[in-house]
């Protein structure tokens, strides 16, 4: 089934087409959300909610969705921002989250790695919305410049500039954190 046919059938709430879209894009959406949020339960909820929102959009405004992939990432990005905004209002630290223990590393090395991951994630969360999204898409999901530009509805040139500035800002924030 080609993408146009798949989209057309999904608009008519065809179960099989919707399941196919879900299985095709769920891993990428999950990773995207997981990269930006610390809470695994929240990541799972948001990843699932993205597809329910797609269903709503098909049901209410079938013409709105033209590129399913871009639409899913855009919606995931909005949901993540909403969650982060809510989280900033009522900050709760869960330092024990996401501490995956690798059998090959020593406990000291694992602790150092986890600390480093938390620092980077924390620094990323203080960047602008666009900078966060471009870092997630380009360096977490490793999408191409063109794919990122399509999802963010920007030109490739704008994405190049944005990613460079995002990385420079991230570096500055990490350095300032190290100084502290």
């Amino acid at each position, binding site marked *: 089934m080609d993408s146009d046919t798949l989209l057309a059938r999904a608009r*008519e*709430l065809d*179960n099989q087409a*919707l*399941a196919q879209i*879900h*299985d095709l894009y*769920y*891993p990428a959406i*999950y*990773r995207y959300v*997981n*990269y930006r949020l610390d809470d*695994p339960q929240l990541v*799972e909820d948001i*990843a*699932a909610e993205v*597809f*329910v929102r797609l*269903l709503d959009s098909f*049901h209410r405004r*079938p*013409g709105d969705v033209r590129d399913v992939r871009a639409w899913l990432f855009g919606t995931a990005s909005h949901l993540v921002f909403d969650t982060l905004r809510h989280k900033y209002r009522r900050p709760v630290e869960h330092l024990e989250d*996401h501490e*995956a223990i690798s059998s090959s590393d020593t406990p000291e090395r694992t602790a150092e*790695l986890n600390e*480093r*991951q938390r*620092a*980077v*994630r924390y620094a*990323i969360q203080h960047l602008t919305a666009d900078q966060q999204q471009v*870092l997630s898409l380009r*360096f*977490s999901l*490793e999408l191409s410049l063109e794919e990122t530009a399509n999802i963010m509805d920007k030109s490739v040139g704008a994405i*190049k*500039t944005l990613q*460079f500035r995002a*990385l*420079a800002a*991230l*570096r*500055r924030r*990490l*350095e300032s954190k190290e100084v502290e």
Partner: protein
Amino acid sequence: MKPEDLNLAFNSCLEQLQAGVPLETVLRKYPQCSADLRPVLEAVMAVWEARGSDTVPVAAMARSRAHLAEEVQRRLAVAPPINFWQRWYRSLRFATVPMVILLAVIGFGLSGLASVKALPGEAFYPVKLAAERFTLSLPASADVRLAREESFDNKRLQEVEALSEQQREQEVEFSGFLTLGEDQVWRIGKILLDVKPEMRQDLTALEEVYVIARADLLQDGSAVLQGVEPRLYTVIGQVQQVEATRLQVDGVWIQLAPEAVVADLPVVGQDAVVSAVRLIGDRLQAVEIHNGKLPAQDDEAAATEQQGETKPASNDSLSPTPDSKEGDGTEGHSYTPTETPSVEQTRPPDHEENKTPKPTSNEEGKGGKTPQPGHEETPTPARDH
């Protein structure tokens, strides 16, 4: 280093890092910008490091899929399946407004285009006449109004010529100067008139006068004259000069023929209402002159016309035309043609005595007499503006 070059170097470094090349090795290839690239590439590596596991929990994915399937069923249970007509309506709904506007524009455009070349008897001809009436109703000076009238009169003549060439039978109405050629054939413009014997006397009275004619076009191209009447013009305004054979009203010189009906010759400074015919050479010759205010019954006539009733202009009581009342930009001083009842074949008993064509009333019958060649001795009036 230019930002474009730095971006190129960055992308190249990124590819090498992804391929597993150590950072120091990568940076050695770009010594001129390694200071700029190093912090950014270190940030990239930090992001990669913080990415953590790429593993997607299979259970989470299965739960999400099951939840999606439940939501689909719930929505399908609430809303019945969309049938063909609903889908058609939905797709149409988004395009309805622009489609209606487009169709309206195309429709108006096509009918406008079609009406431009429409001839009497054709479907779009009323559209053409309506457009002309609208143009005439627009505010304009007396000169502009007259020019528009003449332009439309010329179109009527061209239409009759076109119908005649196409050998079509049609009842037509047109205007122009009535002339008698050396071949003793009556003409209006280039249109040759087929005149019944009983009408010839009337035509003689209207020779060289601007007239409105009604005729039946036959397949052989001849125009059988059914009726003819002089077109009357009403000049309303202040009398500026009065001479023995002419007077000037609102800047317009009007000849005073001895046959003109003059209720009370106005003096300089008075308001006057002059009904006149138009002669070859753009001269106006008075048919009736009234000074001062309009007679009271004309107010009634005007009121009647405003109520939509048709009432021919009266011979003994001139009134401004509905056009002039509606306002032509001259604020009470108008110079407009007036519709008059037809002279046709019926003439008033006194038409032999009345040598000036004039409007007729229902009470007096129809008829008028045009001044004969002698009237050319009258000084030619000239318009001051």
